[in-house]
């Protein structure tokens, strides 16, 4: 279940991901949020290029949990970049994330 409210100790944060537009890419992002019990407040998706999507997520949850989940998202094969702390889009390692690094 993707819950739409965070507890009083939780803070909201906005993440932006650049994702390769392939079957299952969005579902894989959402699956991680659901499995790891991160709260999702809003979700929007825009096309950035013929093969690229930009997904914006507003998420809540304990900060340590959010950090781990963010790492997991960045490791997805189709996640090619994410915004840094200052809102700049930076590529994940090899476009495939540390999860797949050799």
């Amino acid at each position, binding site marked *: 279940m993707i819950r739409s409210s965070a507890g009083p100790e939780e803070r909201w944060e906005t993440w932006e991901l650049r994702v390769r537009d392939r079957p299952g890419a969005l579902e894989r992002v959402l699956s991680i949020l659901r499995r790891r019990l991160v709260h999702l407040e809003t979700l929007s998706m825009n096309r950035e290029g013929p093969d690229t999507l930009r997904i914006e997520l507003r998420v809540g949850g304990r900060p340590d949990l959010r950090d781990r989940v963010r790492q997991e998202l960045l*490791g997805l094969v189709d996640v090619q970049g994410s915004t840094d702390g200052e809102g700049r889009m930076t590529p994940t390692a090899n476009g495939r994330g*540390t999860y*797949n690094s*050799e």
Partner: protein
Amino acid sequence: MKDRCRSGAHAVCEGLRREGVRTLFGHPGGAILPLYDVLHQDPELRHVLVRHEQAAAHAADGYARATGKVGVCLATSGPGALNLITGLATAAMDSVPVVAITGQVPTHVMGTDAFQESDILGMTIPITKHGFLVSSAEEVPEVMAEAFRVARTGRPGPVLVDLPKDVQTGRSLSNPHPVSIPGGATPCDLPPQVEEAVASVARLLNEAERPVLMVGRGVVLSDTAAVLRELAERHRLPVVTTLLGLDAFPRSHSLSLGMPGMHGSARANRAIQEADVIVGLGLRFDDRVTGPVSSFAPSARIALFEVDPAAVGRTIQPHVSVLGDLATTLPALTPQLRARVPETWWRRLEGWSRDAAPRATEGEAPPPWSPPGSTRLPTGREATRALAGIIDETGAQVATDVGQHQMWIAQELEEGAPGSHLTSGGLGTMGFALPAALGAALGRPDRSTWVVAGDGGFQMTLQELATVVEMEVPLRIAVVNNGYLGMVRQWQELFFEGRYSASRLVGPDLAALGRAYGIPSHTVTRAEELAGALRWAHAAPGPALLDIRVAPEENVYPMVPPGASIGDLVESPAGGQPVPAGGP
């Protein structure tokens, strides 16, 4: 010009060959027939026809665990693909590289609930590392290359390739040159932040008075068992090995404290609880290992070497984490260590029992549950101790199922080369052992292969006896048969006031069943028959099956009750009480 007219199915087989695949496990059906037609004509690819797709996934998993290569399984669309799911989840939990290729209905009917259509890509998202739905034959070469690369790199895992039928028959341009997937180059030097983390771990160990190394499957995956051994021996570091790390460091080694966790040894668990520094190597601090996180290793500063940043801190939050492949990071630690472990710590460690159950030594009477010349059933402990003995003695590999026998074997194995102990650690999948052993035996024909299963798990995938016979795989199959779902019964006895709800099993005569499949089989009903029966199975020229009837109500000890700290384990003087012969 002929190459230019190749089909998507040809491109799949070409991709498999390019990745070094020689053996794959599967079951055909309508939506994957074009691929099977090409496979039939490919002399380099050996297809093993399993009797149920779940077994294909487990066999690919077993092949991968035993060989270190990527295992491959095939299934058709709909029910065939869905039957893979348990096997893929098993592989995902234990970081096993598997590529699963599934047929799919043709693209023009996808989304119409066509016959045998299922959204296998969607359904496997949570249990795979990645999945591809291939939309055209031209994509096949690149997808195959990427699927294998994703499966085996970083934290390995299962990858799904879903192939609509028209993609298999569509024209695919030949790719005479290896497909280049960008990225993934192995760095020559450690990044500065990783170097700093390694130095921090070295400082922790150099200052430690009561250090412990905790070793998991990552050491096997990264092929660093020799590096670990050198490190431990040079500094006399105590080593505990998790269930999936048992074959990374032999329990027979004087530095081994055994397995930690719910059914771990007193020495391993108490060492963790008293340690002042714990260095984890390629493990994920599973809840069966830690018990309640709040009471785990209360005095220890914890460091973790881990390849997957997302796995760090999921249960235990380490004070230092070293991110990267152990093959790179562990050798960097070795030259920075100076201290040897204080003797006072070793004297304390040696005061705790290393063995789960007492062993008779030379000149001593045998344990009380094993009187010579009796006509009673063997206990499960006796049966698994004898099995572990012959497995160790012959350098065999073993696949265990899930439950009491799995824990006994884990407690009793003393030796084992990396990749020789196969078990479903994370998911705890009953039915794993037989098909996983099938894959392991085909991948490592140079090793003798044992299956050790309980009567519950064995009955979940025993149809693969037909595959074993057809492929002439010399598996030595031992069913530790107590007529119960033994671990369920144990929990019901201990925590549900003895109400045995649905845990009593009525099974067939397994030896007769084995013979019906054409496998020489025997039933063992007396403790004194064990040694001879195991010798017979070991010497058999082909597959052999032993139905070992054991004491029906016996518990696995030591045991940490659920919810208790791992330091509060319950030890038992013996594994069970003598039971008159007569069957469970």
